[in-house]
């Protein structure tokens, strides 16, 4: 039991303390409870677009990354229904893009791949869409491989909010939604983006990568070779919390 002065909610029956203003997601991760997620990076504003972090709060579904923690609320995350929903969402991401893990530089460092392992994906289940998506290799240092994009919007948000360049945006609807580049030609080479931009550094799936760098990190030394994503994410989140809040 936490002292009465500390506010708490219950996640899958476990009492979770939280600070005022913290989201359910942040409080859970701080307490060591992993919630699968793809579009959320704790260094930036939450977006709640991938819906993988959906939890049931007092009987209703919410994206935990944007759902404020409230004292006494009852939250469910690790249930068969939510696990199945997350698995299906992840399967749909795989079939709606062109994700070729065997030849992907991001393999072993990819959040989508690691999440799929965490959720126990054995196959894609749904028929593959094989969409035709344009590769933009026009920039001298950066490559935009739309085949791998999961439309998490992180590059859009970070380019706008941190880099203050708004290089990236989304266009189209539904299955036809794609990332576009703000430049006269629509190509990266004519945009303001540079290899040092924050937006280029944090793509969770390798849709944005630095050119010419491939497979430098040997098998066994990549992020998710060392620890599964649940363990790795929680450890990094807790370290970040400790650094910021002591």
């Amino acid at each position: 039991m936490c002292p009465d002065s500390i506010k708490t909610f219950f996640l899958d029956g476990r009492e979770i303390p939280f600070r005022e203003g913290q989201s359910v997601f942040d409080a859970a991760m701080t307490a060591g409870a992993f919630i699968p997620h793809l579009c959320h990076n704790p260094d930036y504003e939450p977006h709640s677009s991938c819906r993988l972090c959906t939890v049931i709060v007092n009987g209703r579904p919410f994206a935990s990354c944007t759902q404020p923690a409230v004292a006494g609320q009852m939250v469910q995350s690790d249930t068969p229904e939510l696990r199945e929903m997350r698995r299906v969402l992840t399967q749909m991401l795989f079939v709606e893009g062109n994700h070729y893990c065997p030849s992907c530089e991001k393999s072993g460092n990819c959040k989508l791949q690691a999440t799929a392992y965490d959720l126990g994906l054995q196959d894609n289940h749904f028929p593959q869409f094989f969409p035709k998506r344009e590769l933009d290799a026009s920039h001298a240092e950066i490559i935009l491989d739309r085949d791998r994009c999961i439309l998490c919007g992180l590059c859009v948000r970070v380019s706008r909010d941190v880099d203050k360049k708004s290089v990236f945006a989304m266009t189209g609807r539904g299955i036809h939604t794609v990332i576009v580049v703000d430049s006269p030609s629509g190509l990266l080479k004519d945009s303001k983006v540079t290899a040092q931009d924050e937006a280029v550094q944090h793509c969770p799936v390798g849709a944005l990568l630095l050119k010419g760098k491939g497979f430098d990190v040997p098998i066994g030394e990549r992020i998710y070779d060392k620890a599964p994503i649940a363990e790795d994410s929680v450890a990094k989140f807790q370290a970040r919390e400790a650094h910021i809040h002591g």
Partner: protein
Amino acid sequence: MSRILETAANPRDLRRVVIEPVTRVEGHGKVTLLLDEQNRIHQVRLHIVEFRGFEKFIQGRPYWEVPILVQRLCGICPVSHHLAASKAVDMLVGARQLTPTAEKLRRLLHVGQMLQSHALHFFHLASPDLLFGFDSDLERRNIIGVIAAHPDLALQGVKLRKYGQEVIRHISGKRIHGVAAIPGGMNKALTVAERDTMQRDIAQMVAWSRAAVDLSHKVFESSEHSPHFGVFPSNHLSLIGSGGELDFYDGGLRARDAEGATIFDHVDYLHYNRYIREEVKSWSYMKFPFIIGKGSEEGWYRVGPLARLNTCDSITTPLAEAERQTFRAAAGGGMQHATLAYHWARMIEMLHAAEEIERLLEDPDILGTDLVTKGERALEGVGLVEAPRGTLFHHYKINENDVVEKANLIVSTTNNNQAMNEAVRQVAARYLDGKKLTEGLLNHIEVAIRAYDPCLSCATHALGKMPLQVDLLDVEGHLVDRLVKGSDGTLTCEQA
């Protein structure tokens, strides 16, 4: 000679016998025989029935992905594709000369693969025919039968293959489809612990490899089939070291004709397409390469262990060199043309691979940490290695955005396409012609194919180049319309 059996004069009047699938080979293929009422053979063809098309879907990908992507061509010798593509990509990043450590690590990776692949073929795939007989009891003629009859030998085969796989794992992180070579070098240094682990068992591997050479030699010398089973004159082609020595990883191209005369020598493989061209035939997904100077009829050639031992002047490791001399002496010092000699040559190469692993592990450079070099960029790269099954060509052109625009692969087995067809025709004409066909007799055809250790799945790349004909027939079967695509991709429409 048997080449006349490629196409029968009146195929509609003949009976068709199909061997499908060809067993104990990598990939899927079939052999068709056309026979008349007296069981006389009129046509024999080895067809490759699966299709890959890697050359096409490499297009549009960034060059640094290619060495990883193309190794998925094969689960048996992915290291060969990884290294051939890496050598081509080295050219793209201007790495003309790797650091000593990077080159030696690549060589170690490559001989590790040579050891495991050759062991797999000889012990698991070929030995049932060689130990029990081509037409022996079918129930017994398999790896389970070998384990039952010769448990020690079978175990040696398994352990030799395992050792080779472990060498690959230590360097690339995985036994199959690891990641080791990167543009201009390697991504990981070898640790002392890894080196020591490999050194622990290498003497045993050399000893078992010597025993395998003895066995394959004895089988060849004692077999009643050896002097006339798939024996036919041909050209031979391989990479060769600067001193004419056997070299699996690098060197120039050497071709010799059936009498042993040099057709070309120490050719810079960057210019391979001035010497080698590929022909497409309508009945196979596998192309037919030939030496341009000799034309498509006379210019086809053999690659792989037999060709390498026919083309090289020496082997750099002592035990294998002594065996090479015995091998060449058995052919009177000239060219060895017996298809069954492939097995003997393969085991001599396995011995060389084991000795080479031992030598490289003792080299201080192997523990170095200077792994990557780069230079002036280029838009075209060619990489060749001697894969277990023969010379492997990878050729890429990229655009100024670093994306592959064109890829050409001539895979080891493709080089042996005509030779395998010659072998099955010669064997069919000699052993099957006019006889009542039995499983044992048909296995003779498969034995001839197996000797080349073909990897049929690797070798199918003629995407967009297959001549095709589509006939539209009416309900009575009369031709209404015909669309013909030539090997150059041109479409013509013929109306009845």
